[in-house]
């Protein structure tokens, strides 16, 4: 017989008709036999009834006009961010994936201690797998589509992405913190988390002629390992850029992290 905890997980799905008939019958039978689970079910039912009794509110009459007015006003300055969305253009998407790979190798545990790139690449294997998935984000933006594409269960795709330890932090993304690959499309810039927590860095190749319209918070505490770099002030925010091997990179940093200089050094030595 299943433990109560396993049945408890199924109480709301039973109420919401999200279980198969067989599973529903098993849970219902358990509720007949178990007073504790039946009491919990009653509480869940009460909460559900309370929530559903809340009436819908009418929208204030002037609100949509205000939204349309603001959208109209904002239109000219809303779109400059769009060119930064890497997957909007296949070539840039590929460049972005390349940047992800570079970052993955640099950030993977051991890559900075072991030195040789081969060791780092071994550790980066899961990230490479992720990058392969990310390559398809353009055509398969959500987990369901990705699961269908790879003939996997959705949960397997999600687990694979999470186990790849490849969190992204998108300051412009409303979620702010960790975001899954499914959410990347909402972000004009993708920030890779360097070492978790509040610190995040992003490295993007800057296509020629693209305006720099966005940078993250102050980076005055950071240096770039002696490499030449510019410090730019754009739109009240600051970002760093430098050129290496004919490629212009943009480094956006959030917070000051003691490891950042090492990361940058590793990137520079690899580029």
């Amino acid at each position, binding site marked *: 017989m299943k433990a109560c905890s396993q049945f408890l997980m199924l109480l709301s799905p039973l109420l919401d008709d999200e279980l198969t008939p067989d599973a529903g019958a098993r849970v219902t039978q358990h509720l007949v036999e178990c007073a504790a689970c039946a009491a919990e079910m009653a509480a*869940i039912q009460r909460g559900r009834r309370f929530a559903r009794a809340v009436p819908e509110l009418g929208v204030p009459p002037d609100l949509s006009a205000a*939204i349309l007015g603001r959208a109209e006003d904002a239109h000219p300055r809303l779109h400059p961010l769009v060119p930064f969305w890497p997957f909007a253009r296949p070539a840039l998407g590929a460049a972005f994936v390349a940047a992800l790979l570079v970052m993955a190798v640099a950030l993977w545990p051991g890559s900075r201690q072991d030195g040789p790139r081969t060791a780092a690449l071994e550790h980066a294997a899961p990230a490479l797998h992720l990058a392969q998935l990310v390559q398809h984000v353009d055509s398969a933006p959500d987990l369901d589509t990705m699961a269908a594409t790879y003939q996997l269960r959705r949960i397997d795709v999600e687990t694979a992405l999470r186990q790849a330890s490849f969190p992204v932090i998108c300051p412009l993304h409303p979620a702010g913190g960790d975001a899954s690959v499914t959410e990347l499309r909402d972000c004009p810039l993708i920030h890779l988390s360097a070492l978790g927590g509040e610190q995040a860095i992003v490295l993007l190749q800057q296509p020629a002629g693209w305006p720099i319209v966005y940078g993250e918070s102050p980076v005055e505490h950071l240096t770039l390992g002696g490499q030449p770099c510019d410090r730019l002030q754009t739109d009240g925010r600051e970002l760093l850029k430098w050129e290496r091997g004919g490629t212009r990179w943009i480094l956006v940093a959030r917070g000051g992290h003691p490891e950042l200089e090492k990361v940058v050094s590793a990137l520079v030595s690899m580029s």
Partner: protein
Amino acid sequence: MADATDDAHERADITEPASFEALVHTYERRVYNLACQMLGDREEARDAMQEIFLRVHQHLDSFRFEAKFSTWLYRLAMNHLLNYRRAWLRTRFERLDDIIAAKRREPAAVGPEPERQLLEREQTEAVRCAIAKLPPKLRGALVLKDLHGLSYAEIAGVLGITEGTVASRLNAARSTLARRLRDRRTADAMR
């Protein structure tokens, strides 16, 4: 709350100004209610709703019609709301309690409203308040399911979690809500 207009918007060129206006009219009720339910304050919901639609306007180009538009919109809105002035909410919840308590103490001379209607309105406000005080993760699942009628799969897509996690959050949200409202009634009865 999902309806056939979703499909119409997915087929239309929503980057066209006229379509954006239609989009606002179609979804304003859902977004406004979502904002009220997540923030627990109508004035803040007004501001949040405007910002959400501006974000929609800003990011329409990134919507590729491969996902359901309403799911994309809910995801964007929910992400925005979950981060909306967290500090403000903490203090506001306390004030909301004070406001409700003060209204309860007001004499019956508030108007010709029958006592029963007044009681119902008070109870509705108590439920709204209890929902607003749920932890954000639980509140999000509850609001999307019980107030917006999304399926588990849709909620999972909006919140970026598994359907199992949706179920577990719904369990916790509903039982917490029931417990808090029962405690509140007990406290009221003791007054």
